[in-house]
């Protein structure tokens, strides 16, 4: 028996002109969790599929459990469990029926014991009769994992299992997989969550198919020791401070908002000296190191806010007044109230199915509240929706663009329905092309764009009419950290000009960009406040989130 569960030597995979994997050699150690980390398009999924024998390498050798992935694939598939990005659960079948089906597909029988164990382990035992489509995002992933684990594979390959799953479920998933690895299973876990990757035994950092780092995550993090700081200035708000450091007068690697300060990664000694009085050293985290390896955060100022002029506004641009939404007997949102001031970023955080989308939809008029009112710049959303909507920019989940249309056609359409025409329309479209660097893609179909560009185009389409309010629904899910930083730079620039933003997000660190957040749980806003008020000292946003929910559960159950 070999020591490694899988071995790749000099593997290349080329699609047309595109090198998805370039000369990759590594070993997957037995009984360990190896994280595959990298931005979108780095080759993570390609690597998973190569290991499964679903793709043939263009050159190089792959052996999994000593087997050739091509010639011995039948044998291999019995020993490898795979959970693809979108696990093929049958939503119209129950939990048990899904398990049965996958057992049949794998040609397994007499699994009563295994089923029991898996259901026990994933906590799905009480829900065996529930339709898979009715499960929450986290539960779906657990069911997917259970199906992948049928037949007790020796190697488990997980392709982004954490996407769209709330932090609590993600932690549970991690714990489950951790237990599996302790029992000797070898696991390859691809992810775009860098905080997740920090907990793996080893990471493979990929970028455009090239291996940038292979080793323990702590080792990489340690390299950044002494280079990470929290930056604060009494007179300047963190957002303005962030803009200052990103202008690029002093070389830095990364800068993001964290609480009421800016987290600065600056190995450059001169920079450290310039800001000396403002900096407090902090412990580095994995993400700091990854951004460093990827070449640092995008610098420069966003030009998006160039001509934005916000006029005729009230103090509170968005107002939710006791919003309640009931579907039959089920209350999706209960008595939600908040006021968002002009130039504020307000975040709705919460697990899947907690009611954050429902609240969001009521605010932008996609759903009619059962009771309560929603006001946009003082206009009642129910009484005059068309007028209220003229002032909104809306970016839907998964960057809903017209994928069969070209980038240019999309730009034309969205500017058109917001009433732009003639020279004004042409100028605005040109602005967007310049700001978001869409030039090379104008005749590409929106559906064929890389994810990062889809996001840019979606943002461009949402802001072409100079809205005074922006609604962003999960605007950065699935997008790599660099693109996410760039995205927030644009948003911050607009906010500085007085645009008001309401955002829903899964990414806890993204909540740091918000001036205030509301934690939505079981249909209610259980806590509202500035991120640094909600967090306790030395807590990450994710810790704070989980603690608040657990506290709430304890309070309500007693």
């Amino acid at each position, binding site marked *: 028996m070999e020591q490694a569960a899988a071995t790749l030597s000099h593997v290349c995979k080329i699609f047309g002109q595109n090198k998805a994997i370039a000369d990759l050699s590594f070993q997957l150690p037995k009984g360990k969790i190896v994280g595959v980390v990298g931005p979108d398009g780095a080759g993570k999924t390609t690597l998973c599929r190569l290991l499964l024998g679903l793709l043939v390498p263009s050159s190089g050798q792959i052996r999994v459990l000593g087997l050739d992935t091509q010639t011995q694939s039948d044998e291999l598939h019995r020993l490898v469990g795979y959970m693809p990005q979108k696990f093929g659960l049958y939503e119209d079948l129950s939990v048990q029926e899904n398990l049965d089906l996958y057992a049949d597909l794998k040609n397994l029988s007499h699994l009563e014991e295994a089923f029991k164990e898996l259901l026990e382990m994933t906590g799905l035992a009480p829900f065996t009769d529930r339709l898979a489509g009715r499960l929450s995002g986290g539960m779906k992933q657990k069911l997917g994992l259970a199906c992948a684990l049928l037949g007790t594979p020796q190697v488990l390959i997980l392709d982004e299992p954490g996407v769209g799953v709330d932090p609590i479920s993600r932690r549970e998933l991690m714990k489950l997989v951790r237990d599996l690895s302790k029992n000797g299973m070898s696991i390859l876990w691809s992810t775009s969550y860098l905080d997740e990757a920090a907990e793996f035994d080893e990471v493979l950092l990929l970028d455009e198919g090239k291996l940038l780092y292979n080793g323990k995550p702590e080792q990489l993090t340690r390299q950044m020791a002494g280079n990470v700081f929290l930056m604060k200035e009494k007179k300047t708000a963190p957002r303005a401070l962030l803009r200052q450091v990103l202008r690029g007068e002093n070389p830095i690697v990364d800068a993001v908002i964290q609480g009421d300060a800016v987290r600065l990664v600056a190995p450059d000694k001169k920079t450290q000296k310039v800001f000396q009085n403002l900096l407090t050293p902090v412990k580095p985290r994995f993400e700091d190191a990854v951004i460093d390896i990827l070449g640092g955060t995008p610098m420069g100022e966003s030009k998006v806010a160039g001509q934005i002029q916000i006029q005729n506004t009230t103090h509170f641009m968005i107002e939710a007044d006791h919003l309640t939404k009931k579907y039959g007997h089920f209350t999706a949102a209960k008595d939600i109230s908040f006021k968002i001031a002009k130039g504020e970023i307000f975040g709705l955080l919460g697990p899947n199915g907690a009611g954050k989308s429902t609240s969001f939809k009521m605010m932008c008029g996609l759903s009619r509240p059962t009771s309560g009112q929603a006001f946009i710049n003082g206009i009642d959303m129910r009484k005059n929706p068309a*007028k209220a909507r003229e002032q909104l920019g809306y970016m839907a989940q998964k960057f809903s663009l017209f994928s069969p*249309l070209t980038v240019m056609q999309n730009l*034309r359409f969205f500017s058109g329905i917001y009433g732009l025409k003639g020279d004004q329309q042409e100028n605005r479209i040109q602005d967007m092309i310049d700001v978001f660097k869409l030039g090379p893609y104008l005749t590409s179909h929106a559906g064929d764009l890389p994810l990062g560009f889809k996001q840019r185009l979606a943002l461009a389409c949402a802001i072409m009419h100079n809205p005074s309010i922006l609604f962003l629904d999960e605007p950065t899910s699935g997008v790599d950290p660099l693109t996410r930083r760039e995205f927030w730079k644009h948003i911050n620039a607009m906010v500085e000009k007085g645009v008001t933003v309401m955002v829903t997000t899964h990414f806890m660190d993204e909540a740091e960009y918000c001036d205030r957040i509301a934690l939505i749980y079981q249909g209610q806003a259980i806590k509202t406040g500035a991120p640094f008020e909600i967090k306790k000292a030395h807590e990450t946003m994710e810790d704070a989130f989980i603690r608040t929910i657990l506290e709430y559960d304890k309070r309500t159950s007693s």
Partner: protein
Amino acid sequence: MKCSCFSRLSRLIALIIKEFQIIWSDPRNRIMIILPPLLQMTLFAFAATLEVNNISMVIYDKDNSQISRGLTDKFENTPIVKTVYHVNNQQDMTSLIDRQKVYLAITIPNDFAKNIYRGEPAKVQFILDGRKSNAAQIVQNYATQIVNNYQSEILGVTPPTSKIKIDIRNWYNPNLDYQWFIVISLTGILAMVMTLSITALAVAQEKELGTFDQIIVSPLKPYEILIGKTIPAIIITLLDVTIMVVAALYLFHIPLMGSVFTLYGCITIFLLSISGVGLFISTLCQTQQQAILGVFAFMAPTVLLSGFVTPIENMPVYLQKFAYINPLTYFFRLMKGIYLKDFPIENIWMNIWPLLIIAFLTLSFAGWFFNKKLD
């Protein structure tokens, strides 16, 4: 306010342009728009005419006299008759009908010649295959005509015994050309299918793309969104209809007696009533697949109960009621009327107002439902 109207219009235009681009961007869509009218037109029209042209029949001549044989000759020499079977017992005749070998069975009783010589009414029995009621009716007309002609032939120019000479003449379609009927009806059915599928897919497709919310959140009003979906569907259908109208004129030589204006006006009103149904199906469905199923669920009974397959008078009474709320029923009447006899305005109005009511109802229902679905 004028300015605002203008800007509403420009938004609507953006919506309509987008709809065309979406439809045109998919090569499958392009084929779907161009191919069916051409294909169906040629295939259906030619195939359907064969049925009434090359008919087979059986004659059971019990009399076997000179006069009865003369009648048999008449049938054998008729161009639309392909084969004439001769049998000499009832069973053989029944079996030919049962096996659908023949449309028409004629029995000549053994006192046929005797009765004619005596100047008494002579009888001939026609048995028609009711399973093909349309074709059977046409064949019956032909057969009656042949018998009547033969009657006047053998009895001289002024027949002493029969005072009333039956002279059947098929108005508006003097040669009883079945092709005419088929081509005109097909134009209607195809127009319906096009509009129905384009509108039914429109909203469902946006839901699949995830762009539906995006449009709802824009300042467009719900009715504008629906108009934006309806107009492209109707324009594309009218283009298709034009192909078929041209084909009908030049390929099938079907005269267009009425005015082109009236024809297109009626088609547009019909399509409005259909697009209401399509939009309703669309708001109901989450995916395009569901929408396609919805289209078929609507289409099959609509075509069946329109008088295209079976004359409405031949339907059971309770089904006839459905025929009268069926837009296709009125549309067929209008099409045939305008095409073949230049319908006077009263006749057009008689069939247009039900269509207008149906259009008003389906469109407002689609709009109402669309609004309700936003909850």
